[in-house]
């Protein structure tokens, strides 16, 4: 094996009393795409932070090209050629794309900022990555996929040797993810080492050369992707055998709970009609931007719509009125957990109880005790891992945060659960728990409408799959008829290869 570009050995990092890293290691070679795998809480983030220069390791060493890697400074990390691109890239909305690429290190000529040079160089970088972006436009309004491209261009502009991507495809449509993986391949061609952190095993096998699996703060395995299999990797990550990741047990399908008729919102979706019955899980599949989340938000009332109607148990639901939906027994678990699903600085108790304040108040007053009872009930049911119900939810892991969101909605005892990307950014173990939960709830008579971009999840969980494309409902597939190819075909309108 050739000499590694970057090597981490025996990394140890503690925060307070807790150990985030207890012997992690990583070997990166030049011109490779390396998958970094592990459940949430396995220590991946902390390791990445160490590489990014945010933390300094308590023990262990990091070497870059054989020399000691200077830790503890994001600036120095970048100067040494290591960049990290986060799941939600953070650009500067008011600055142009060219300025974003060169922010903090603007190109200069005779002491003044050289605008022309920055513009040209940025355009050149975008071209090299194979994307069309205008370097003079402001970064505001850019899609996440485009933002990531700008971040990668930034990394290229400083000639990064090691580019780490932290769950980059989590918020991308299949097409955008494909484009990103292409970009990763180009980076590999030019000799960079790319670390790809993902929960999606299909990506690992489609893209990556080698892998490293972490568990409980340490590295448990590494190897060549081609020599392994998904089942094997999952077992390494989880430490136990997961026979069926997405069990949906059969349930008796009852009456129609939700009927959507000719729903239209100009510019977002058009003439959407479908229904969901009790005991059913209906999945809305399609590419990001096909309008699924918009439909679902319109049904719930957070967004208004132009025409059509929504019927709940036969009764029309007023548009644009989330409270009416709530009262009717609808719950919406939104796509963006942190911004829309939770009150981050607030405690678990407050978060869970906020939806049922009406029900627990006595003579107009809310007692903290009653809030706590509700929170406790759901924390236990969902097996929430926490250090006290007063803990602010921002300190929980992604999977546990999702459980809090689920808890607060399940506390309303809904008859229809609408859930947008149920397991995004969640580790495999919790994913299975969530799926089992949904399956059990459906068996108890809950109607579930699920938006998901993960085809394995759709195929495993749904009784029916509705595929949307560019705001229209293209096709409905039953559980038996649905395949990845058919869904992708309907979603993209293209014939797929293989």
């Amino acid at each position, binding site marked *: 094996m050739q000499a590694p570009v970057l090597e981490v050995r025996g990394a140890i990092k503690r*925060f*307070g*009393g*807790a150990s*985030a890293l207890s012997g992690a290691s990583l070997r990166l070679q030049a011109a490779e795409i390396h998958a970094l795998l592990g459940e*949430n809480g396995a220590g991946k*983030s*902390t390791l990445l*932070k160490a590489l990014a*220069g*945010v*933390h*300094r*390791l*308590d*023990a262990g*060493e990091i070497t870059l090209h054989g020399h000691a890697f200077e830790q*503890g*400074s*994001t600036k120095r990390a970048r100067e040494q050629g290591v960049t990290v691109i*986060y*799941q*939600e890239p*953070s650009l500067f909305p008011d600055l142009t794309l060219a300025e974003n690429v060169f922010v903090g290190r603007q190109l200069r000529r005779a002491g003044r900022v050289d605008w022309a040079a920055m513009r040209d160089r940025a355009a050149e970088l975008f071209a090299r990555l194979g994307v069309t972006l205008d370097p003079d436009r402001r970064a505001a309004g850019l899609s996440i996929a485009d933002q990531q491209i700008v971040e990668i261009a930034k990394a290229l502009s400083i000639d990064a040797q090691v580019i780490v991507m*932290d769950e980059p495809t989590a918020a991308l449509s299949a097409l955008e993810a494909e484009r990103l993986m292409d970009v990763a391949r180009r980076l590999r061609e030019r000799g960079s080492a790319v670390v790809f952190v993902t929960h999606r095993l299909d990506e690992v096998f489609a893209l990556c050369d080698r892998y490293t699996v972490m568990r409980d703060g340490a590295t448990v395995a590494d190897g060549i992707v081609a020599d392994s299999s998904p089942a094997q990797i999952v077992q390494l990550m989880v430490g136990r055998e997961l026979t069926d990741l997405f069990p949906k047990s059969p349930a008796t399908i009852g009456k129609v709970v939700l009927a959507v008729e000719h729903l239209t919102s100009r510019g977002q979706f058009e003439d959407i009609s479908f229904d969901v019955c009790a005991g059913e899980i209906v999945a809305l599949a399609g590419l990001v931007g096909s309008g699924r989340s918009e439909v679902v938000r319109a049904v719930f009332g*957070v967004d208004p719509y132009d025409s059509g109607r929504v019927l709940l148990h036969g009764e029309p639901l007023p548009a644009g009125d*989330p*409270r009416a*939906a*709530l009262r009717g027994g609808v719950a919406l678990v*939104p796509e*963006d957990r*942190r*911004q*829309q*699903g*939770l*009150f*981050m*600085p*607030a405690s678990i108790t*407050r978060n869970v109880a*906020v*939806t049922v*304040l*009406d029900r627990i*108040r006595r003579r*107009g*007053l*809310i*007692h903290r005790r009653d809030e706590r009872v509700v929170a406790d009930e759901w924390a236990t049911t969902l097996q929430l891992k926490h250090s006290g119900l007063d803990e*602010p939810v*921002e*300190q*929980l*892991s*992604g999977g546990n*945060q999702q459980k809090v969101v689920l808890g*607060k909605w399940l506390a309303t005892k809904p008859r229809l659960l609408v859930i947008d990307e149920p397991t995004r*950014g969640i580790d495999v173990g919790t994913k299975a728990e969530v799926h089992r939960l949904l399956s059990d709830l459906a068996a108890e008579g809950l109607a579930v409408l699920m938006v998901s971009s993960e085809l394995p999840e759709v195929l495993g969980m749904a009784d029916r799959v509705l595929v949307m494309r560019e705001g229209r409902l293209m096709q409905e597939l039953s559980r038996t008829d649905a395949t990845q190819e058919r869904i992708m075909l309907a979603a993209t309108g293209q014939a797929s290869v293989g």
Partner: protein
Amino acid sequence: MRLLRHFQWDKFVPVLAAATLFIGSFQHEKFLTTGNMTFLIQSIGEILLIAFSMTFLIVAGEIDLSVSSIAALSSCALGYTWQHTGNIPVSVFVALLVGTICGAINGLLVTRLGLQSLAVTIGTLALYRGLCYVLLGDDRLKPFPTSFTSLNYKGLLGTWVPYVVVLLVVFGVAFGITLHSTRLGRWVFSIGQSKDAARFVGIPVRRVVLGLFVSNGFMAGLAGVVYTIRFASARPDGAVGMELEVIAAALFAGVSIFGGVGTLWAVTGAVFFFGAIRSLLRLNDFTANELTIVTGSMLLLSVMIPAIGGRINTYRASRAPTVAESAGVQIRPHTDPQPANP
């Protein structure tokens, strides 16, 4: 971590106020007299009334800088109506109505047009103050009937306690219970923590925020009425600077300017504390200017001390990782003490 800080501090502030009263009684023999206490309560009356509802606004993540102008406008409206009708109850009603309407205008601009409350209330601060001049010109209206103005001097049921106390207790309890033990109060905190998430749980954000501005306008109007009674006059250049005092007290009490955190008893304590300190200083012959310096310094200290304390803590021990960090949201990098590498 910040919530933890507030949890201790906001219980401490009323204690601080009580302690000041206690110490003050020893420091100056005239401090704890009924005369001085009357004066103290009267001097903080208007501020406290506004502070009750302003706390709601700040917790919801908004701000209202126009309260002084609203109070002044209400006061002028009271005077103007009295001049033209000779009827006090009607004039008071008009004054309160004016305050409410001003609040509603603020609220509509913020909720309907989506403007930032800081910018809007800077504008309405000028607008409402200007309307005072339109209403009264340069005059000062003095001729209020003694039955009205003597309210200021007569105590409650013959005791020394000024009538304002009734208002303070009633509104204080009402606002306090609402903020901390009702659904509306929970909603206000939620809105301050995340407007988006609030919408998603069915909180009618726009309606609530509008209501908060309206209520703030009403309380400012009420403060204007109290002010008019206290000074027995209505003038366009009266009631200046109240917004700064209210905000200073709220900030001192640990209400976060970013929203989502705060307690009403701490704010009440803070207003009393500032009032008591001012009274003490005045008795010790400090000038008004020196009081201003002291107020400003206390405000600065109130935020500096916890920040410095926090820095010391962070230097001593390492922090536990928050999920904010592991989810990729960065906190400013700080330098850890250099560990020994094997």
